[in-house]
């Protein structure tokens, strides 16, 4: 905190909330599945940022461990998710979620 004494936890939180909201908005407004995917990543990283910030504030490392877990899960999720999207694109020739609505009742 010495280097940037004016930056408090609140600033971190603001950035994090901003990122998270962007993610949500992205998911709600965009129809391209890849973009939506990126938005999910954005939300995950917003949470990561918040976790790290709190970790620093309390001087404890538990939350940083969580961050690693989230990163691992996110990586795995991307691997699977992108593979699914690849197959979808090959078969349907699109990644628009407006068209991809077959999975129901």
């Amino acid at each position: 905190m010495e280097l940037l004494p004016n930056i408090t936890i609140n600033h971190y939180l603001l950035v994090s909330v901003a990122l998270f909201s962007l993610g949500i908005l992205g998911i709600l407004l965009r129809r391209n599945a890849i973009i939506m995917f990126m938005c999910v990543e954005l939300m995950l990283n917003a949470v990561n940022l918040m976790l790290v910030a709190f970790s620093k504030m309390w001087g404890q490392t538990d939350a940083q461990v969580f961050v690693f877990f989230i990163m691992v899960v996110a990586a795995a999720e991307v691997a699977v998710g992108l593979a699914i999207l690849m197959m979808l694109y090959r078969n349907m020739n699109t990644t628009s979620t407006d068209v991809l609505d077959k999975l129901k009742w």
Partner: protein
Amino acid sequence: MEKLVTLIPLFPLVGFLYIIFLGKGLSKNLIGGIGSGAIFLSFVTSIVVFSTQLGGGNPTIVKVFDWITAGTFDIDIAFIVDPLSTIYLLFITGVGFLIHVYSIGYMHDDEGFNRFIAYLNFFVFFMLILVLGDSYVTMFVGWEGVGLCSFMLIGFWYKDMKNNDAAKKAFVINRIGDLGLIIGMCMIFMQTGTLKYDDLFISGSEASSLNGWYLHAAAIFLFIGAMGKSAQIPLHTWLPDAMAGPTPVSALIHAATMVTAGIYMVARSSDIFASSEIASNVVVWAGLLTAILGATVALTQNDIKKVLAYSTVSQLGFMFVALGLGAYSIAVFHVITHAFFKALLFLGSGSVIHGMGGEQDIRRMGGLKKYMPTTHFTFLIGTIAISGIPPLAGFFSKDQIIAFAFEENMLVFVILSAASALTAFYMFRLYFLTFHGKFRGTHDQEHHLHESPKVMTIPLIVLAVLSIFGGLIGFPHALGHTIHFHHWLDHALEKTVVMPFLDMSLNMELLLMLVATLIAACSIYFAYNKYVTKGELALEDDEIESGTHKTLAAKYYFDEIYDALIRKPVDAASAFFAKVVEPTFIDGLVKSVSAIPTGLGSVAKLAQNGKMVMYVMAMILGLILILITLL
């Protein structure tokens, strides 16, 4: 020595299991040898066990293990050794053995040979359990078991639907009788608290605590059980149909052993029947009706096995008359002689059918005397024996039943004598039409005609010898001999009730014998006159004109009456339930219940429309809602 009794049912059971599970690939002769050998071992053991009872009969219970123990009710698997059970053992295993040997020849070319021998063994096992069981419950196990085996053996040639129908009919009609037996057993248990013979009749005398209408009802229900198994009117219709099975089955099950289970059960319950006059009268009249109706129907049948089947029904009627009159030992005596000559006749008819290549209609036979001398000769002996000509087996037993009837009730005597005369007539009609005159079958059949192999004729000869001499065990008093057999058996059967015994004068008894013999001889003469001298033949179906003849040929329309009274209403009810009740009420109820979730679901499923944005939106709104509520 008595302990050996446990081995007797064991041999056939082992034989059955061995043939079923390990018999594949063994030669037919070996399988036949195992099957007959098992019964032969039982027979030898039976003789040993029987010998312990010769000294006058001391009933022994041989316990194997506890079966049911529930409070005060306990039933063991235990065997009773007494004169009644051992005498049954002897002829079941003895005649059973001969029929097994015969089957080796008769069924030799059948693809189901192993299965057949195994079933026969299984049947003998259950029959032995029936006879040896020391309580009504154990007897019932055997009772149902023989019913099952009977079902399997009647429907043995299962590829023909007709045989399956006959098997089902036998099974269903027997169920009616079995229900009676169960009710009878329950009634006995409710009043006496036990179902063991030992407590009821032998060491204890719990049976005497049955009284009033309870006693009569229990006895009558037991008798209904016997009616089903022993084919008494009105539950007799399964037996003639049961002739659909292979002939050795008819000989073993439907003549010599299983159908006599009813006689055994009534004789075993003699204490109960003797104290209920009403039940005894029911037994007499049911037996009498069966004897005379069976004999009249047999007059007109043209299927060689059907004639013998109705003859069996009629003879069982004779036995029940004897039982109802209180002559239990005489009934059992007739069971034994009947087992000999009826097994002989059935096996003889099997030999004829074998020689004729499957033909059973006596209108297509004739003149078989010169083609099948051994079969002819043994069949003749059987015919004479059943007709009641002294000194063959049938004479002694039947004559004693008739003498008893003479003493007790004139009407019964007259009807029995008539039935007896008819017996002689229809049996000789069968004999003359089959073995005398000209051959009436096709040329192919005549060419094919041959005497059966030794493995079939030797049992015939042995049974013929038994049919000649078997009656001597009950040699009548009048001819200068004390009737050991009856004294011995009565001693075992009767503890509390004094047996009514023939006390007519010697001359009277001789006179009755003479009359009975003359009646039989006259009948035989009539048959000879009609079918040999005049050479008349049995009418073809469309030549029958007289109403009586039609009624008899149609077996008094029993099947048609049952069809109209029971089958049709049941069918109609089933159709009503299937077409109206089931679709409207049952289906209606179930479908209206399922309509509720379906209806709700059709609303709820609108939410799942596959649009990802909607899901995300719902999730976020939900989260916001939760947050608002929490904060």
